């Protein structure tokens, strides 16, 4: 299921402002890739180009290619809606649908995609909630509102919702930044478990988290405020954190700036 992503010569714009410049990288299948870097360096922006969420913002454009399994996601005849079904996303703040119950939240992607079979939906809800380590906590109140859960549970609910549509890639944009340490640990354990089935890309501000969960790490930086962000280097996480190839990477991870 999981597939690798090849990014080539990616430039990302907000209207005329070039936010990210010249990114080329390979994201391996069935592994966790972490994006780290100071605020404003464009790591979230790059992440959002991987499922064409970037263009949801008015006047946001992209040049370059993002190949998923050899197919460029930015080809003219590619449907962004289909791309997002293949490449799921979890956001910084938990955002369950407030009108829906816990099970409806998980089933939302399938239901809105046209799935009507109750047995199929119920099976997907249980599988996804188990996959997100939330089943035991919510199995007795599946018809209760999703917004009634704690922050950490809501975030796992959002992960369950994302994996319910069986994507091949899961993008996570600082998924733990709004959570307490215990909930963070639960999410990190979960990432460790599901990476056997998915290609995971996670943006994080927390370097320990990057070191704990990821196999590969990409460090982004920007020359100065107002300048476009760029990829400084990308390597195995152990190498980045022990023996980075570039001085600025070392400065950043040792806390000298950022």
């Amino acid at each position: 299921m999981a597939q690798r992503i090849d990014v080539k010569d990616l430039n990302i714009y907000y209207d005329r402002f070039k936010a990210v410049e010249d990114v080329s990288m390979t994201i391996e299948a069935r592994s966790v890739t972490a994006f780290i870097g100071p605020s404003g360096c464009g790591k979230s922006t790059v992440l959002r180009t991987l499922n064409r969420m970037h263009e949801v913002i008015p006047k946001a454009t992209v040049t370059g290619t993002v190949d998923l399994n050899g197919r460029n996601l930015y080809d003219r005849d590619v449907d962004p809606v289909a791309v997002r079904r293949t490449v799921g996303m979890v956001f910084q703040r938990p955002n369950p649908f407030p009108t829906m119950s816990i099970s409806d939240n998980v089933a939302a992607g399938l239901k809105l995609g046209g799935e009507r079979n109750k047995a199929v939906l119920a099976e997907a809800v249980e599988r996804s909630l188990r996959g997100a380590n939330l089943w035991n906590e919510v199995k007795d109140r599946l018809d209760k509102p999703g917004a009634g859960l704690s922050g950490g549970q809501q975030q796992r609910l959002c992960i369950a919702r994302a994996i319910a549509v069986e994507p091949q890639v899961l993008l996570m944009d600082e998924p733990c930044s709004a959570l307490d340490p215990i909930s963070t640990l639960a999410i990190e354990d979960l990432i460790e478990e599901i990476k056997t089935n998915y290609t995971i890309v996670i943006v994080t501000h927390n370097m320990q988290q990057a070191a704990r969960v990821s196999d590969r790490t990409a460090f982004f930086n920007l020359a100065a405020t107002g300048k476009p962000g760029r990829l400084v280097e990308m390597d195995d996480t152990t190498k980045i954190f022990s023996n980075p190839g570039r001085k600025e990477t070392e400065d950043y991870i040792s806390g000298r700036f950022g």
Partner: protein
Amino acid sequence: MTATVSSPPLHAPGVPELSRRRRTRDVLATVMVHVAFAIAMVPLVWILYSVLGHGWHLLLDSTWWTNSQRNINPERAGGGVYHAIFGTLAQALICAVIAVPLAVFTAIYLVEYGTGRLARAVSFTVDILTGIPSIVAGLFIYALWVTTFGLQRVGLAASLSLVLLMVPVVVRSTEEMLKLVPNELREASYALGVPKWKTISRIVLPTALGGIVTGVMLGLARVMGETAPLLILGPYASSINTDLFNGNMATLPTMIRENFGLPDQPAIDRMWASALTLIVLVLLLNIAGRVVARFSGVKK
């Protein structure tokens, strides 16, 4: 905080007391706010008091709710207001059936799709429509319906003039409600591979439903009490007329107008009782709207 850290005494050295100046200002502001509230309440309570006081006894009679004013002279007591209630509800319903979809779709366009010049033009037009005096809306429909098309002044024509008044109210309220839906919900939906139109119809609209319904109810309350266009387009009839396409049709506002200024006590009583009936009707609709809004939309 642990028990060993005691909180400092209230008047610790260096922590100044509330100065006399600030205390005076605080009292002054509190008094002014309460006085303003009391003054604002005066007309409301007064209206309710007079309308209730003059009108309540007619409402207790069951014929008030079931009969019309057919064959009842101003100097004679009796008869009911059924014909006017029917007219008001029927015209408001037809108005809502036309205005609500129009207004909600316009609001969706403005919030979810509209950019640039066209959206600004639409928004500007809605602003102008908001400012149109209701009598002008009545005159416009008269010019279109009677002068241009040569049709009769019937219930439907009155409904159409009410549409002009209801649309801008509902557009603005729906727009505000749609803007309140967090963008994160739209993004969450897109990220699941849900197309935009489905995101709007299945995520955004249900989330905003409570507020949209409230806005529709406010719009309905406004058009149900609207009188000026009805004076032009909806001549009063004392009998029941259930046909929106033929003949004169009574409404509560025109019934009030019909009984106003007459010297006879029964007519004066009917005027007050009709006014009270209109208030009760609007109140019931508001309650119904709140109930609908509570049992749908965002779950708490």
